[in-house]
């Protein structure tokens, strides 16, 4: 798999981050090398195996339907955010 400019731009968009212009060539090569390596999995026969892997199927816990909230946690999360007002996060204007 070769990561070209177009695909890297798509991945940047999906990842919500930009690669610095001077690092683009390097990162395209690194990502291509990584993907070429992991394609060795195609040498393994996996026909008939399930699509999803779970460590164990016994992990879904049931509990009583009670509300358990530590309100202080929510409060300090907001107060420790980069910008807040009252009990809300402040973000750049959207509309």
């Amino acid at each position: 798999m070769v990561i070209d400019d177009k695909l890297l731009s798509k991945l940047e968009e999906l990842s919500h981050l930009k690669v610095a212009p001077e690092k683009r060539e390097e990162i395209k090569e690194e990502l291509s090398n990584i993907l070429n390596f992991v394609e060795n999995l195609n040498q393994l026969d996996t026909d008939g195996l399930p699509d999803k892997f779970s460590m164990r199927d016994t992990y879904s816990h049931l509990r009583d339907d009670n509300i358990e909230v530590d309100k202080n946690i929510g409060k300090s999360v907001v107060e420790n955010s980069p910008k807040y007002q009252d009990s809300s996060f402040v973000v750049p204007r959207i509309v």
Partner: protein
Amino acid sequence: MITLKEALKLPKEELPHLKQDLKKRIEEKKELNAYISLDESGDGVPILIKDNIQVKNWSVTSASKILQGYISPYDATVITKLRENGLAPFGRANMDEFAMGSSTETSYYGKTLNPHDYERVPGGSSGGSASAVGGGVAIASLGSDTGGSIRQPASFCGVVGMKPTYGRVSRYGLSAYGSSLDQIGPITQNVEDSAILYDIISGYDPKDSTSADIEYSPITPNLNPNQKYRIAVIDNYVKDASTEIQQAYEKTIRTLEKLGHTIIHKEMTDAKYDISAYYITAMAEASSNLARYDGIRYGSRVEGENLKDTYFRTRSEGFGDEVKRRILVGNFVLSSGYYDAYYVKAQKVRYLIQQKYSEIFQDADLILSPVSPTLPFKFGEKKEPLDMYLSDIYTISVNLAGLPAISLPVDWVGNLPVGLQLIGKPFDELNLFNGALSLEQGLK
């Protein structure tokens, strides 16, 4: 350095002296850069905490620029358990940024040194946790292991590092990297201390939906180094390791035989496939887990012209190169058109790995394996990301299959330690610790 077992026996009034002495030692070996800071929280035997485990009111940053300014609003479950058992978090340990690395070179706070050779890496990602214990500046520490991040630095620093069965230790309060792989575990001076700390942090936790709700019997009071086991060695694995590692492996096999254990020979599928299944899975999970760092709720923000621009600027400036690489690859393997060929394929391969381990465990109680293919390498030696990934070849299949494993020092080459790992059956930690204790005593 006093052991954890000894420290737990100290009268309460001795603990302030112990902490003073510890601070002095840390100051004397400041150049290790194992500690990001010397935060304290509560009374108790001081335990060093990796910078991705939440301690209430501490700045907890996963050694990343993007989390500068973040203050943890709660204790991770493992921290609550430490407090309940007479221990207290003491100091934040350096690590690779978001636990992505095998050398602690990707930390925002700079590299941590190997306590036995300052030109070499301490391993990673829990490099600070292992370097501090190996360098005599921590009694014990907590690390996290997604693909070897406890065992490999423990091996590089000459200490004991243990990764519990997936689900055994609560992940509540551990910054998520690869959620289906991550486990918190102890890094200690010896096997018994490892069992003590493991007992304290283990057990079912309703706050972690992947926590295993099964019976738990404490290990420490039941430790028995005289138990004899059938231990499998994976002949085709070891051929890829350096001569020093192979020699230490052979020597250890002879020691285990002398101790009365039975060695049996097994084969595994080439570990190059483990690397692929691991990195696809870990990067996919990381790309989702790290989507939350957008400058709105946590840590630092770089203001942009609009909301989207703020996300982009915050993440572009806040994440280091390795983290960016993994997010980009993670989004690639999950993206439409490539999902089946990469992500789904890797999940199918996890079944193959798990099946292979089950087959071996039909005949064996434990598996002996190298931890790292080489001795601790020098700083800057692995420049290519793929070279660094290949150094995890012996540790990652354990995470892919969710097994428990313990790395312990078995030999020295000059001033450099060699660690090997024992791997156990799921939730069979008692036999894992027994085997490790037997080997540790046999090596004395």
